């Protein structure tokens, strides 16, 4: 079976079967990452360009490692400082990269829709590594992979996503992914951080975190963009943390053994208490590890190498 699409720009357009195919493909690459020699020749001779318009260490590194473990040639290209200043358009820059025979472009961009715009304009495959507040599909896929690895069934799984959902691409991609696979998603945050009509995406909205956490199997904490204080979204970090921070006490409201996830980087003591981040419940480092395997799977499926 293969992924019959040129690009991965979001979860919204994926079918449940496609999602499961990516996860199953990632399974076999997870095995590779555990070997002594963590490399397979699947993408030998292919070129992958990491095209990052926003600073990102972990996502870029994860894609780079994934591509290298598949034996692809990797170029890291961060035009934020050069081309944008010169006024070169996203498409022009991308066509230049394409002219250098890039097979796959991995794009991180501050504008929602940038990956779709790019995908329409170039022949190379495009993987969205985060576009504005729109989507971050590989993050959602690695989150699913991690849940599956912990032997959780998606159907009926109760997941709380807590924080600034309005400005979160991770939240959107996870809402699309989890609802497609039959999970029950609870969106938790202050009303200023819940985007319009969110219930219509098939989630329940809670403003009270304690109420929301009752009986959940998974708690996904979102990173609070600290610079949003002063934009009238929340009064102070102190109050935000008191109302929506995940503490050990709050964790006890969830199902016993509930998992705690976070896309990183963590603001310790703000959205998540240090003892929770480091507890047995936390799978934050599993998420990072699985990111490489999942991205190998996505690169492999889109490269047409199978």
């Amino acid at each position: 079976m293969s992924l019959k699409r040129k690009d991965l720009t979001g979860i919204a357009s994926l079918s449940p079967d496609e999602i499961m195919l990516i996860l199953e493909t990632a399974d076999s690459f997870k095995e590779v990452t555990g070997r002594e020699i963590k490399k397979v020749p699947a993408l030998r001779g292919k070129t992958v360009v990491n095209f990052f318009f926003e600073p990102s260490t972990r996502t870029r590194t994860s894609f780079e490692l994934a591509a290298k473990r598949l034996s692809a040639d990797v170029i890291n290209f961060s035009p934020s400082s050069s081309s944008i200043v010169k006024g070169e358009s996203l498409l022009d820059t991308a066509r230049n990269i394409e002219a250098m025979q890039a097979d796959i472009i991995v794009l991180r961009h501050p504008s929602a829709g940038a990956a779709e715009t790019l995908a329409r304009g170039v022949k190379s495959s495009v993987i969205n590594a985060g576009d504005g507040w729109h989507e971050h599909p590989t993050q959602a896929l690695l989150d699913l992979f991690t849940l599956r690895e912990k032997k959780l069934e998606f159907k009926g799984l109760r997941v709380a996503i807590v924080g600034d959902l309005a400005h979160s691409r991770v939240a959107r991609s996870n809402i699309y992914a989890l609802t497609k696979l039959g999970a029950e998603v609870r969106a938790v945050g202050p009303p200023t951080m819940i985007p319009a009509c969110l219930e219509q995406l098939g989630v329940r909205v809670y403003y009270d975190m304690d109420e929301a956490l009752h009986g959940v199997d998974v708690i996904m904490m979102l990173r609070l963009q600290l610079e949003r204080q002063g934009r009238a979204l929340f009064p102070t970090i102190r109050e935000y943390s008191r109302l929506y921070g995940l503490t050990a006490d709050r964790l006890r409201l969830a199902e016993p053994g509930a998992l705690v996830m976070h896309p990183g980087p963590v603001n310790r003591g703000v959205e998540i208490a240090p003892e929770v981040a480091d507890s047995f419940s936390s799978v934050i480092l599993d998420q990072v590890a699985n990111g490489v395997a999942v991205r190998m799977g996505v690169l492999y499926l889109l490269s047409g190498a199978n």
Partner: protein
Amino acid sequence: MAILIQGGRVIDPGRVNGPADVLIENGKIVAVGHNLAMPSRGQGASLHTIDATGQLVLPGFVDLHVHLREPGFEYKETIQTGTASAVAGGFTSVCCMPNTNPVNDNQAITEFILDQARAAGNAHVFPVGAVTKGSEGKELAEIGDLRRAGCVAISDDGRPVMNSLVMRRAMEYALAFDLPVIDHCEDLHLSEGGCMNEGLVSTQLGLQGIPAAAEDVMVARNLALAELTGARLHLAHVSTAGSVRMVREAKARGIRVTAEACPHHFSLTEEAVRDFNTLAKMNPPLRTWQDIQAIKEGLRDGTIDVIATDHAPHAPQDKQREFAEAPFGIVGLETALPLTLALVEEGVLSLEAAVAKLTTAPAQAFSLPKGTLAPGADADVVVVDAQRQWEVDPSRFRSKSTNTPFAGWKVKGLATTTIVAGKVVYEFA
């Protein structure tokens, strides 16, 4: 020079609606009636007959809201190309917004625009002057000078006057010249960073929304100020159900307000943005089905007086950008007629009412001596084949820009001949 338009159905809203001929001489309408004959002339006189059998003969359309981009943005549109686009769409008079570079906030710019329009020789151009210097929302522009130079209204358009005191003073001051004050109603704090309607689609796409309240808040403010000052208020491109409701109530109470709606705001919803299509990005944004219904009801019951295009040309390199970065606006002059006639087909408006929204009503809103076929009036006439089906092909636009979300639409109704001041300036070939 004489032109006789024979065999058509004449609609001059409120005056004539039926089969009639129209005789034009020396740039003026001479007569509208049955079996008119071409006046006899000596050798060499220019006589021209137009067969309008099966077609409509209407006053040339009046557009209260266009952006001709000159001076400053000639790569998007010039007064020449913009007015060529106008006459191709049946518009013989256009009111151009002051957000040029430099801003039309003084007599010299107004005169420049009028000179360029005369040189172009297409549609009549009526400049709209700025409310404040540089449209910065601080100090009043020399509104008396603008009026004297030929401005027919004042507006800060896309940079609406946020300071309510400045708006109050502008309305009061404009009273001295009986000038309409136009407002693009948008609370810039509520809309900051927004690039489409706030709702389900903006949430799905992760784009910052512009809530309907950003418009409604300013409509409410402006109506209150119009009531306070007694000024003539004109509301540009009404896009929300809330605006329609408030204008209806204000009119019932006798406040002097007129309102316009744009074809895109009654033809498309926010769904058009779904694939991050920057050609569906405009301000105010495309809203919801409920808003469209309210606008149609407002057009039907007279709450919304005028259909205007907000013709806003942008070059491909402007629009081919990330959605949030692309500029707002679409061209509209060459698609307004069929989109308006679709309201007739749908039963929202009678044909005569639809014609009035494009002719008599806009002329009246800005006190322009236009939009009528009364004998003695300037001979601005459009002949329309209302049954003619065609497909919107932007590459055929007369406008310099092609930024339309209607490409490929199968539409009905076409201007076949446009006459300005007794001269044929456009014929559909």
